[in-house]
């Protein structure tokens, strides 16, 4: 094969890959774009067939209406408390347990790790009722703490951290021990800075998951609407108007709800890119 032919084929391949990537990106972004556009339409435009793509005069009325129907500030605050507390808990417990699993030699370590990994494969719905009974028997039903407590540790997080911490050189940890650092100090002052990309990834996963989680808060909060996170309050937007769905209103609520995780992603994305770049340089 001549190099010109080879280059030509490579070019065609590149174009096909690019087209596929564009296709996937459009498909992924479409619902998001549709949501934002719909939130800017008038109620009439929302109901029209064939659908109106771009609103004639974009208006923000629906956003104002959201605040009339639900206590958006309170809901956002609840969501924020649930997502940040749970994320912080997961980061701390995952880092500590991941460190222990990666760097300590103790009897039964591998068996314990295997059991913990096995819990990752249980569908959440299976543990829903037992967990609910446990939480209510502890007197934590219908409270934000009841929503948060069972999720402060997470098998996936521990697994992820163990994998990354295993890559931290033992010498670094020994150097810190000789320097007089306690084990806790080693975890947070020596190991944590060495696994920042993993912490960023886990923080993002945990925050988004617990921001969006629906079933567990719905179960635990038992209709205590004051404690509802924004995702549950969106449900109230749906049932507002006795079944006659106001699409613009729901979409405005949804757009607001999606903003915090989106901002967090934009912020943390830098860490992923950094980690990929530095890995490439080090070879």
């Amino acid at each position, binding site marked *: 094969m001549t190099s010109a032919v080879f280059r030509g084929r490579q070019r065609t391949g590149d174009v096909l890959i690019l087209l596929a990537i564009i296709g996937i990106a459009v498909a992924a972004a479409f619902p998001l774009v549709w949501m934002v556009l719909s939130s800017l339409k008038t109620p009439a435009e929302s109901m029209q067939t064939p659908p109106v793509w771009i609103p004639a005069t974009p208006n923000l009325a629906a956003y104002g209406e959201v605040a009339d129907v639900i206590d958006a500030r309170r809901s956002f605050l609840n969501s924020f408390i649930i997502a940040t507390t749970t994320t912080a808990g997961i980061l701390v417990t995952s880092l500590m347990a991941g460190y222990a699993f990666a760097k300590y030699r103790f009897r039964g370590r591998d068996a314990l790790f295997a059991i913990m990994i096995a819990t990752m494969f249980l569908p959440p719905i299976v543990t829903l009722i037992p967990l609910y009974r446990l939480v209510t028997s502890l007197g934590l039903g219908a409270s934000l703490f009841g929503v948060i407590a069972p999720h402060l540790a997470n098998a996936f997080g521990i697994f992820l951290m163990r994998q990354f911490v295993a890559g931290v*050189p033992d*010498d*670094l940890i*020994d*150097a*810190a*021990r*000789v*320097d*007089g*650092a306690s084990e806790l*100090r080693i975890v947070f002052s*020596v190991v944590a*800075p*060495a696994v920042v990309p993993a912490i960023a990834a886990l923080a993002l996963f945990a925050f988004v998951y617990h921001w969006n989680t629906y079933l567990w808060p719905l179960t635990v909060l038992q209709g205590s609407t004051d404690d509802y996170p924004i995702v549950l309050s969106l449900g109230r937007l749906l049932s507002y108007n006795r079944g006659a769905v106001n699409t613009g209103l729901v979409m405005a609520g949804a757009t607001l709800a999606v903003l915090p995780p989106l901002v967090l992603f934009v912020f943390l994305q830098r860490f992923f890119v950094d980690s990929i770049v530095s890995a490439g340089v080090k070879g």
Partner: protein
Amino acid sequence: MATLKLEEIRKSFGSIEVIKGVDLDVDEGELIVFVGPSGCGKSTLLRIIAGLEDTTSGTIWIDSEACNDKAPKERGIAMVFQSYALYPHKTVYQNMAFSLKLSRRPKQEIDERIREAARILQMEHLLQRRPHQLSGGQRQRVAIGRAIVRHPKVFLFDEPLSNLDAALRVSMRREIARLHTELGSTMIYVTHDQIEAMTLADRIVVLDGGEVKQVGTPMELYHHPANIFVAGFIGSPRMNFINGRVETMAEGRLSVETRVFGRLNVGLVGSVTVSTGDQVTIGLRPEDCEIVDADALPLTVSLVERLGDETLLEVTSTSGEVLVVKAPPIREYRPGETVGLMPRPGALHVFDESGRAFARAKAQVG
């Protein structure tokens, strides 16, 4: 400065015993080098002294204080690692300050100690850099600086120069020797490189298979190895070993029949427990024989390595034994030519069947 004493130290990982009863006394201000091949237990022994590994049995004494149950930070030691082990997210200054901050030293004292260490190691200009902005030599210097600031009783070095290139290794080796003179501290240094061991040590501890094979000054080990292992390990290129059989023995003199040199007469001191007909091993260093014209027992040159100031010849005897000899560079040798060898009088070492050396005259100890 402190003394260090190891008493019957043993260490097992599961059923495998890696340190088999090590005893050692280190004087104040002494630089002791642990040397031995990979897997001989030298790094494990160092980690035991540091408190990074527990002992299975035995006692570690630092300044007459038993340290077995003390954490590394309580032992008054500082350690320099082969991989440097610098905290990558901290600057050089922060790396050096870390241990002092943990021990809650006043800020001014921390600063003074860091500036002093930086001056000793000539790295004042590097203090605000991060490890990834430093060369290998500079990183090692920081690692040493991090140890110095703690003013430890004992410095521990775990193969600190292994990751450096040859030229840098030589200059850092000299720096460590200078540092030892300047600080006068007790130091334990682990290496697999016998040149590092010879040039740095006050005394060398040769380890093999978790056992101490010999402890002595570099020249004691070179001239009077206690056994065939030490004889082969110390000296570069390594000592040649030739099989022989005891022909006759008289007071202070042994006559050994070899296939390479024919009959060799060896002068020994002390009592010799060997009988006529016993198998022995003759040791001959490459620098201890003279190249002469081929005689009745010719050797064929099979390899020539020119080093500039000298030439290494690999020669093969008619009976197939291979020897390495150092030749002066004045003459060109070519593979295939035949030469004769004459051992320098008094240069021969004799080992019995178990590998133990017979004592030689003490005249050569430096």
